[in-house]
């Protein structure tokens, strides 16, 4: 079985050996990048620069929380608000693969700029096994390009360090617990963020809608888990489907968007079963979303597909 303590003991000296100069890490605040940052920080200290980019497609309060986390971990960090740039780059883009590629490339451009200023030579990424497996490597068919891997521009000048490359999520969580990191139980969040939870063009307005809906789904499911009503899903969120349907609001015709509730159960996301959310919880989510986002959303649906045939995220 996987031994987190052994893994840490083996990895830190290896990183010390491998990284000669300064390194940069793309710090999202998720389990993978936080564990990677903690390991590299233990190996090379302040020579590691952690960079968090607010893309405008973050969850509610996320960037503020990440800032606090970087402070608490005593990382040498930089915080960059690039939301306007990302919104502009994704204007009129509807194709999911294009979205992923544009976001991945933009991330790297920003990191390259910081890398130049800080004179770093290495880029640390929290890539884990399923990321590069699903991205395909010539032999495999590409299901989705994960922005850690498939989105990397070919002419990138930085040397890549991926300390978690052979690990699965449950193993990364074990390492996080061993390192006493508060993020150890956080649900995965895709690199391209809420942009791929918006079907079609990811406008700032749509980002605002799906952000609020995701927040409600997260809060309600976490409450239900706490009350023992259901098992904690591997991932749980909302997807905005910009297809309008007819509703009725206070005796008046309404014509609003659709939100899908998605929650799946898994240990490594290679296969997933949809989560069994009790009806009372679905009911709460539905009522809250349609009330809070009254003029925007008037229909809620529940995604009941497994992986395969579907994937966890919709795009």
């Amino acid at each position, binding site marked *: 079985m996987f031994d987190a303590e052994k893994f840490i003991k083996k990895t830190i000296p290896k990183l010390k050996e491998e990284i000669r100069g300064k390194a940069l890490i793309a710090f999202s605040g998720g389990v993978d990048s936080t564990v990677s940052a903690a390991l590299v920080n233990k190996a090379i200290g302040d020579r590691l620069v952690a960079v968090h980019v607010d893309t405008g497609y973050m969850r509610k309060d996320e960037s503020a929380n990440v800032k606090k986390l970087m402070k608490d971990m005593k990382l040498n960090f930089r915080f960059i608000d690039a939301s306007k740039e990302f919104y502009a780059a994704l204007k009129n883009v509807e194709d999911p693969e294009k979205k992923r590629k544009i976001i991945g490339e933009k991330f790297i451009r920003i990191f390259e700029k910081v890398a130049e200023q800080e004179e770093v030579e290495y880029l640390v990424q929290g890539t884990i*096994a*399923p990321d590069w497996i699903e991205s395909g490597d010539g032999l495999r*068919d590409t299901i989705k390009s994960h922005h850690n891997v498939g989105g990397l521009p070919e002419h990138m000048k930085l040397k890549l360090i991926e300390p978690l490359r052979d690990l699965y999520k449950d193993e990364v969580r074990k390492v996080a617990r061993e390192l006493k990191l508060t993020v150890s139980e956080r649900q995965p969040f895709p690199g391209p963020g809420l942009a791929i939870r918006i079907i079609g063009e990811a406008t700032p307005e749509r980002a605002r809608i799906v952000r609020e809906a995701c927040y409600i789904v997260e809060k309600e499911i976490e409450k239900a888990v706490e009350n023992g009503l259901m098992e904690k899903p591997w991932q749980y969120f909302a997807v905005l489907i910009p297809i309008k349907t007819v509703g009725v609001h206070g005796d008046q015709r309404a014509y609003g968007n659709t939100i899908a509730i998605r929650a799946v159960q*898994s240990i490594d996301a290679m*296969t*997933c079963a949809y989560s069994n959310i009790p009806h009372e919880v679905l009911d709460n989510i539905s009522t809250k979303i349609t009330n809070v986002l009254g003029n925007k959303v008037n229909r809620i649906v529940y995604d009941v597909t497994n992986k*395969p*045939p579907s994937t966890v995220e919709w795009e």
Partner: protein
Amino acid sequence: MVRIYVIDNGGQWTHREWRTLRDLDVDTKIIPNTTPFQEIYRDKIDGLVLSGGAPRVGLEGNLGKCKEYLEKSFFPILGICAGHQFMARFYGGKVEPSKIPEFGKVELMLLEEDKFLFRGIPKKSIVWESHNDEVTILPDNFKRLAESENCKIQAMKHNEKPIYGLQFHPEVEHTEYVEQIFKNFVKLCEK
């Protein structure tokens, strides 16, 4: 320590096979299917897993050097999905597009008692599938071991050699008896 290599035919879950073996304390490695048999043989391995493949590779054409492995090996081999389909073609069976492809959750029915690979597995269990093609004619000298509602040849075994083919995916988390099936295969390789 038992040494079992995973031959990578490009499937989405090759890594899961590697992980399941690793978790059973097997000395294991993922090897590209272009590796010559001589190189694998030199490592004194006890068994091979032929992984699933990129779309449709089981239907026709070569799976790298899988033909050579099947010709020359004397140790147990477990073919999964495309690996299983290639195995069937190699031994003279037939592979065709499935009338009803299967994805996700399916009920597996064991037809025959099998003391090795399916030891301790109940007659009915849940397995996960992901295939567009399937074995339609069993090769000579093979026995059919399991079926599902829409696929008649879910598992097969060579009559004399420790060679098994599985259409379903025994390596993914949501298949009910992942560990038991792999434990059984490891035991077969230990012999």
